[in-house]
């Protein structure tokens, strides 16, 4: 591996000033992307500045939503009960990323800042309306995650800036979200296509949701949609690997948002999502297949979101 110096600052300020003073420096968190890139000679920084030992990057705050520090590792995030309960899409992604060994060092900040189109936590954060909190010379600023991804490997922050945390709003209880990663094998894999969705129903439908559950159970969901006029107050759909960046399929969202969820609106949303996708042929998957999978995964994540919303109300 090419030589580099390695620095371990204890505070954000120290990290920033190191970055400013060093030539050809780069931040490193868990290192599972950065070190692989260096080994594969895709990049060759002279200095790595570790963010692993900065305590303020490991905060968890649980009021008015959830704030999670960027340098929390995936395995720690999995232990946060609120993520499992209220932000299921993120939980799904955390379980699916890499392997246990990777999840034991890889951080959510690293996953987001690496900005691979297949980044597992990206789609969940998109549908969960996350805000990215960024620290830099001019202080701290917030960027909606949707504006944060710019292209493969590029994000809306200065190189010297540090993502410190992600803020997730709190959602009404009648909300469900889900993430599905489509892979060729069941572990240690990158997504061929990935999709996340969030559905928030209207408050007045709560009793209907309960009825739904008591009458039929969630397994019969797709067939029963027509009997239960569920009004979608807010819909989010995000897709991975089928564009230069993880993105929200907003036309698909608008097929559902402010509408009743039924077979037809669901199908429209899936068709629209497939239209919005711009998949490519790569060795990891063929474009036509990826587009097909966008439809399937969109449907499945929405149904899973609905199921979870219903279960939340039970």
């Amino acid at each position, binding site marked *: 591996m090419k030589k580099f110096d390695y620095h371990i600052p204890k505070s954000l300020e120290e990290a920033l000033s190191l970055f400013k003073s060093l030539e050809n420096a780069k931040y490193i968190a868990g290192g599972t992307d950065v070190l692989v890139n260096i080994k594969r000679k895709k990049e060759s920084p002279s200095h790595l500045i570790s963010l692993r030992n900065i305590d303020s990057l490991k905060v968890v705050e649980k009021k008015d939503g959830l704030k999670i520090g960027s340098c929390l590792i995936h395995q720690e995030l999995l232990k946060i009960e609120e993520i499992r309960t209220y932000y299921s899409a993120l939980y799904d992604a955390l379980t699916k990323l890499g392997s246990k060994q990777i999840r034991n060092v890889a951080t959510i900040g690293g996953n987001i800042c690496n900005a691979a189109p297949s980044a597992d936590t990206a789609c969940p954060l998109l549908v969960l309306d996350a805000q990215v909190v960024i620290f830099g010379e001019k202080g701290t600023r917030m960027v909606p995650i949707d504006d944060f991804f710019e292209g493969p490997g590029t994000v809306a922050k200065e190189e010297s800036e540090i993502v410190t945390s992600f803020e997730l709003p709190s959602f009404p209880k009648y909300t469900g979200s889900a993430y599905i990663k*489509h892979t*060729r*094998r*069941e*572990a*240690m894999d990158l997504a061929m296509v990935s999709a996340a969705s969030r559905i928030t129903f209207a408050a007045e439908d709560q009793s209907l949701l309960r009825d739904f559950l008591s009458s039929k159970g969630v397994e019969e969901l797709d067939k029963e949609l027509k009997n239960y006029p569920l009004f979608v107050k807010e819909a989010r759909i995000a897709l991975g690997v089928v564009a230069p960046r993880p993105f929200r399929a907003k036309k698909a969202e608008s097929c559902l948002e402010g509408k009743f969820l039924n077979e037809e609106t669901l199908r429209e949303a899936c068709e629209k999502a497939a239209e919005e996708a711009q998949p490519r042929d790569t*060795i990891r998957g063929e474009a036509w*297949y990826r587009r*097909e999978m966008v439809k399937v995964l969109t449907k499945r994540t929405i149904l899973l979101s609905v199921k979870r919303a219903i279960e939340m109300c039970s």
Partner: protein
Amino acid sequence: MTFNAVGQKIPKKDAPLKVTGQALYIDDLELPGMLYGKILFSKYPHARILNIDTSKAERLPGVKAVVTAKDFPPNFRIGFMKDNPPLKGNKVLSTRDEIAAVCAISPEIAEEACELIDVDYEVLPGVFDPITAMREDAPILHEELGSNVLKLPWKLVCGDVEKGKSESKYIVEDTFTTQWVTHCCMATSGCIAHFDINNNLTLYSNTQIPSLAQNDFLEALNALGLKNRRVRIIQVTIGGAFGSKLDTYPYEYIAILLALKTRKPVKIVFSRDEEFFATSPRQCTITKISQGCTKEGKLTFREVEMILDNGAYTSWGATTPSVMMMPISSLYRVPNVKYEAKCVYTNNTYCQAMRGYGNPQATFAIESSLDHLAEVSGIDPYDLRMINANQPGEITPQGFKITTCGLKECLEEVAKRLNWREKRGKGGGKRGVGMASLIHVGGGARVYKSDGCGTIIKMDDFGKVDVFTGATDIGQGADTVIAQIVAEELGIPVEDVNVIHNDTDVCPWDVGVHASRTTFVAGNSALYAARKIKARLTEIVSKILEIPQEDVEIRNGIAFSKSDPQKSIPVARAIRRAHFTTGGSMLMAEHFYDPNNENLGKDFKGNLSTAYTYGTHGVEVEVDTETGKVKILKYVAAHDIGRAINPLLLEGQIEGGALMGIGFALSERLIYQNGYLKNGNFLDYKILTVRDAVPVETVIIETDEKEGPYGAKGIGEPGLVPSAPAIANAIYDAIGVRIKDLPITPEKILKALKEKAGTGNKA
């Protein structure tokens, strides 16, 4: 017959070393003064080399030697057809071609030096598939040969195929294709070469063929002007082989050359990237097959034409058609058989042996086609197989003398455990069951002038035994199985048997660990050597106890009189008595066992193996018809293995083989585009993980092979042979589409489903 050591689930002898991290693999070994070698590979799949400038590399501090083709004798070639110069000086024919190599005091410096070597190329048009390579206007790789088709005319004709066709009520014809798959040994390839002061070579190696490698390297030393030298191969712990180390490779000759230049030990160990692109995968095949049967389902003929992508050079792998003939002629009873195969040079990676040695590709075609024939004839696929199943005592059209054969039992067990009659055709468009069988050599395979293995045994004053065997342990457990056989014969505990199997200076000759032959051949060799010791031992005991020799029995290290068990003596004491006396003696014996099998004749007929092994795999799958993903719900693997010497290790071979077979069927493929490997890493080359693992239900059928050690036949390879067709057949049962091209990816399934829905036709 009751056994003490045989048939026991005895843990592998070297497992304690391996679980504590003490087993030394090639990368773990360091010798004093050792240097690190690194190879510069070609940038292009086909190009003329105009100039190689190594001057910058030579000037780099820490570099001890730089070598190019000039450093080998001009006509020195390696490989089965002697078409492969270890370093290429004129032309490169693939992206894994070796152009230069360096050795330095550290791997980092060696790598840096490689990057400093400048090569001028004149890029030539390449040819990347065998069909194009056979065209008149295709670029010729080996110009001196005048053609890209190898001069290895594989042709087998048994009976009269035309007559068979005329007797057929039903005939099917299909074309099947298989992909490149690679061994993915968890430890990468490597060696350390070292010359002593007398120019004798020691090579630390993970080869599967120590004796043949010794021969190859002696030839190399001769070519390098070192006449009449010695070559010693010391095998380190081998981190997976699966056929990959069944030949000698350029990197080994390069290490030898660098060691000779520097007079220092030189280590070359591949990085994982190199392991993927610079080792030899299983050959991809295009197979046209047709088979027919009578109204009653009796097979009438089988006709197969095959084209193999050989890659740029020729390894032993080019002889895989000789093994493909085996299932083509002899899996099920088929009277008329015709098989022709061509191996074709391309600018792709050159192929080699991999577990099954051609059998998986051939069996995929045969068993998929057989299900097609079942459908056309309206006979249940299980019934069709039972009607045509091989039987003990038959001689197959290719001349194989079938001794033991448990194929029917395997088929029955699979059908029973899969609940075949209830499930076949009743999966509701999502679930399905399928099966496929195999035949493989189980009693050695005479692919070389000798199929033998030598054993030397000595017994010490304490009753402990050292067994020096030619066999190689590649993780499968040869060490343990041999110890069990010797312990059984001598009536001593298994732990008293020490097996030495890693040094050509002390171990006798063996043709190599291949063809699932080690338990049978090395096992017999050890058995007969032990028998000789036992004869001496019982003679000693009979004299001491003053009883007839026939009356002596040994159990658990104690020798006693069968008729009067009160008369007894510990074996160790008897040995000491014989040793420490005037004119004393000690117990030593040797045996070279060469099975009574035959080399195939010019017509490719003959009894290739002393015994044949059979098996059937049955699978239940569920297909996600929206995504095309296949889930395996149940997997039964029934194998006729003669006798299970060690059921624990046996299950390990079958379970591991099956998952490798499932990978071959569903997920694994090397993606080459215009001669460049595109997925040479563990993220993109999908060997299966524990999440994909299938609870393989192993069924052991014991047929007690008369020629085998305690009745055993081989099992190293069969575990993966029928996986792909069994899965393909189950998928067809589930969703009515037949995928004829491996691997069966979700894309292929979804596409086939769409085509089926669009046209309303069956596949």
